[in-house]
């Protein structure tokens, strides 16, 4: 637990001081909103409501890829990754700390993006906020879990900037499927069906456990 909190604290403090990760993610998300604002018909049409969840998750996923790449590139400076590998506990706690920090940073970006998205496309209501937070949180747990594991793999490769999305996106299919379906149902019908939520919970559990265990080997040279 000490290691988890230490890594979480370190990642959040360094991000607060630099803000390079969160600003890049937020700017990307807002650009996506702007681009789709021009591409989609204006007003709260049925078509917009059907497309919006997918677009929102496109923004979230690619913003997360940006952030996850950056989360490990800072560890390359001064070979700080070696310092994390030396930790005298299960290295899975390091994974949890880094994934937790990514989850917090991504969550802030997602909240601002969702607010702007809702205002620009005139979709959603106040009653949707809590269920949407739940769906986004469930999707983000899986996204940050497997993204943190693969970020640690990709950071030591030659083409790390493109390696992470190539490795990550195929594995995100269950997460994306569950998240988009649940968000679409919420926006169109005001209800969250159980089936996609169940898929998200199972995928989160699998990715969390596999990443916790696998991280020990990923940090080995």
């Amino acid at each position, binding site marked *: 637990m*000490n*290691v988890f*909190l*230490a*890594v979480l*604290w*370190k990642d959040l*403090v*360094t991000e607060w*001081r*630099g803000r390079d990760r969160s600003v890049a993610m937020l700017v990307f998300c807002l650009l996506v909103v702007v681009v789709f604002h021009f591409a989609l018909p204006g007003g709260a049409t049925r078509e917009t409501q059907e497309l919006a969840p997918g677009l929102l998750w496109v923004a979230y996923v690619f913003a997360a890829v940006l952030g996850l790449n950056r989360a490990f590139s*800072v560890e390359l*400076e*001064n*070979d*700080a990754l*070696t*310092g*994390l*590998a*030396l*930790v*005298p*506990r*299960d*290295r899975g706690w390091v994974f949890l700390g880094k994934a937790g920090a990514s989850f917090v940073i991504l969550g802030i970006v997602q909240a601002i993006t969702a607010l702007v998205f809702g205002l620009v496309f005139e979709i959603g209501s106040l009653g949707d906020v809590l269920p949407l937070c739940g769906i986004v949180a469930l999707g983000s747990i899986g996204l940050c879990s497997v993204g943190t594991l693969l970020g640690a793999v990709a950071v030591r490769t030659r083409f790390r900037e493109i390696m992470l999305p190539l490795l990550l996106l195929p594995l995100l299919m269950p997460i994306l499927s569950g998240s988009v379906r649940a968000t679409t149902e919420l926006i169109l019908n005001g209800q969250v069906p159980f089936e996609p939520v169940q898929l998200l919970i199972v995928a989160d559990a699998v990715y969390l456990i596999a990443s916790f265990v696998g991280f020990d080997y990923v940090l*080995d*040279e």
Partner: protein
Amino acid sequence: MSRSTVSARGLVKRFGHAAALRGIDLEVPEGTTLAVLGANGAGKSTLLRIVAGLARPSTGRVEVAGHPATHHEARRQVGYVGHATLLYPSLTARENLIFAARLYGLQDPGECADRALDREGLAEVAGRLAAGFSRGMAQRLSIARGLIHDPAVVLLDEPYTGLDLASAERLARRLSDLRGSHTVVWVTHDPERAARYSDAAIVLSQGRIALRAAAETLDAPSLEAALGAPDTAA
């Protein structure tokens, strides 16, 4: 705290087709300081990183304090100071040490960090970001980081890198303090320092031990001769 030994048996490490280590057998008794010398590319840093549990050997076995080197119980006993400083530039010197103390689960990380800063003569710059440190100051902070948990086994990879005269003397005193009470394995290019601050030495050449010098035969000229090329000595 238990005082530990390092032992390696039949250690081989390959990177693709290239072998960095080709069958190293090594025993470092408790409380001994062992210097590791060798030309660039001889396998010194690879050996140290395997003992630190950072890399797995291709074949062979390494134990630290009776545990496989990659086990977290072995890592708890090890303090590692590498080529790079392992520091976060956007954290202050004190924050870097507090972070390290938390990773090692030390009681009162702030107090531990302050003691380590005092020991390295960095108390006055405790609140400065590590990004603004000179190479020498960063190296001293890196040493403080590596030894913050008072490890039984100390691994130092060319610790004199970037140090000015005063800092080098401080490190020499530190090595003398550690001698006898800690098991130290340190990599150096300097045969004189190796002879002065060590109980034994090995010279690596192309991944093999070319010379083992015990306490009674340890002297700078013989190490220099074993190193062969004079340009490898700092």
